[in-house]
């Protein structure tokens, strides 16, 4: 796996290096996916452009009322241990805590997790459910904002194409009375890859009863992380009774497109979607209620 290695100090330099490479060079963030892919020879490259020395891509900011901004190269573990993230966006923390190992999360970045565009990327469902957007620098150096749900184009493929860069992810401040939750299903309790995962963000009405808005996202059950639109639509303006939650789960089962692989059959993955959607909806609703109580006090 011989390749050239570059360490640009600025975004402009990085963009130029990638452009020169005409698709034969790849950006490197944490590197935890691409280094393995290069070693397994499933990916080949002539050069790696390390983005981690570009200051703008580092760090995160959370101002109450102004959402969360994550630099694409920020190590996952930084966010995982940040109380300010966990308090307001528990689904993000829940996803971060289960990615690989702790020693991996000290290297791996959220940006890299998204750019790798694995259908099972753990951080994708909560970001999609929370309506996060990606700040993208196109190969033509244009800055664009793309909803994370539209970021993925297929397994290993994203809107970045061969020369684009992900700069940051922005999670908007949730509406009042909003709760979110993430759950993934794996055989082991640590160091595993999702057979299926789901995240939900639920906003309740002022009374804390009916669903005013809901976003549900699924992982590992389609070529990309996807929203469960029919399930979302179904719960709208309803109380999340056990029956409503169960029917939302069934709607999500119908709209996912899982495949068979050695981790699990398509049939099982579909069943898991129903179960996980029920669980994250209930959890998100409880958190929304708890929040509505503290917010109204």
């Amino acid at each position: 796996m011989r390749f050239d290695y570059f360490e640009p100090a600025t975004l402009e330099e990085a963009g130029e290096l990638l452009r020169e490479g005409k698709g034969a060079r790849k950006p490197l963030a944490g590197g935890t996916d691409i280094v393995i892919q290069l070693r397994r020879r499933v990916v080949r490259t002539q050069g790696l452009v390390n983005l981690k020395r570009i200051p703008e891509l580092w760090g995160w900011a959370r101002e109450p009322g102004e959402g969360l901004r994550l630099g694409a190269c920020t190590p996952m573990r930084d966010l995982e241990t940040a109380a300010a993230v966990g308090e307001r966006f528990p689904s993000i923390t829940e996803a971060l805590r289960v990615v690989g190992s702790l020693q991996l999360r000290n290297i791996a970045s959220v940006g890299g997790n998204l750019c790798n565009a694995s259908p099972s990327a753990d951080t994708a469902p909560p970001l999609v459910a929370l309506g996060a957007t990606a700040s993208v620098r196109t190969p033509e150096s244009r800055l664009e904002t793309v909803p994370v749900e539209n970021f993925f184009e297929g397994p290993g493929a994203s809107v970045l194409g061969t020369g684009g860069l992900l700069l940051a992810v922005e999670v908007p401040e949730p509406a009042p009375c909003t709760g979110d939750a993430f759950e993934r299903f794996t055989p082991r309790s640590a160091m595993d890859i999702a057979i299926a995962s789901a995240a939900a963000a639920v906003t309740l009405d002022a009374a804390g009863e009916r669903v005013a808005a809901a976003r549900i996202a699924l992982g590992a059950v389609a070529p990309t992380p996807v929203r469960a639109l029919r399930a979302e639509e179904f719960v709208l303006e309803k109380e999340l009774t056990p029956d409503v939650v169960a029917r939302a789960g069934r709607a999500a089962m119908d709209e996912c497109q899982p495949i068979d692989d050695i981790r699990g059959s398509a049939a099982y993955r579909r069943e898991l979607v129903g179960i996980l959607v029920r669980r994250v909806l209930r959890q998100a609703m409880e958190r929304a209620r708890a929040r509505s109580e503290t917010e109204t006090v």
Partner: protein
Amino acid sequence: MATRKGLGIGSMYYGIGYGFSRADIGSAEIEMAEDGTTTVYSGACDMGQGVMTVVTQVAAEELGIEPDQIRVVAADTGSTPDAGPTSGSRATFVQGVAVQNAAQELRGQILDMASRMLECPKENLHVRRGEVCETGTDRPLVSVGKVAHQLHFHGRRAAAWGWHDNTTQDVDPETSQGDAYATYGWATQLAEVEVDTETGRIRLTKLVSATDAGKAINPVAVEGQIEGGATMGLGYALYEQHILENGVPRTASLAFYLVPTSMDVPDIECEIVEVPDPRGPFGAKGVAEPATIPTTPAILNAIYDAIGIRITETPITPERVFFAIQEARARGEFEED
């Protein structure tokens, strides 16, 4: 999350050593230097489980010297005698006796010389904590080091060879009747599992392992074998499967081949049972495999106890349990909450 708990038992017996008339021997040499420090040349491989430590303790006990006076040189065809493999839970059981035999002979050499030095009948002497002592009073008379020095000074032997043959007859070719193994290991485990009846996922929440060590020569090492064995049994039961498709491995990576992590294993409770076996050193026998075997059946039985469904195929993946529950439901046989 709908979960149910269940308890299950797994028991086993396991022929210790090779059996089937396969050569099952242990051998060691022990040599004491002029200062009384001792080297055991032991052919048994230590894989970290502690046979080197067992060899040290057996030699120390028999020679009456401190373990830190003993060094073990292990498993080298250029320097140690053949002690058979470290497998079949046989290392302690077979090599322990070989070392015991060698150490007893060396002790005899020490006492012979001490008897001459002290002009005291050998029968009235024994070795204890590095001293030759008067039997009865335990009064130290001369250090082992001084005796060793005299052995060397006078050109006497200060070295011994120990051998132990644990080879058994093969069983009858038609009926398999016969004394298949010199002895057997025994173990029973109690597993408690939590079954997620929605997903089929199983979690081992408790494991108690009652394993007969005969005599635990080093209890912490025995516990290490028990805990490690049960964890490997847990991996076999729930997580690990090497999948081939058309003969070609599809799980040739630890990202796909799942070994239990620290978050998957409960605190394993070790109940060391000691039913002495006169054929082993100080009554001891091996535990490595006996501690591994009962875990999977205990988990299988605990799952049945929890949900009334008998799984007959391993590994017990969540998917397998999930569809077993679905099928039981379809037959009207699943006990709903």
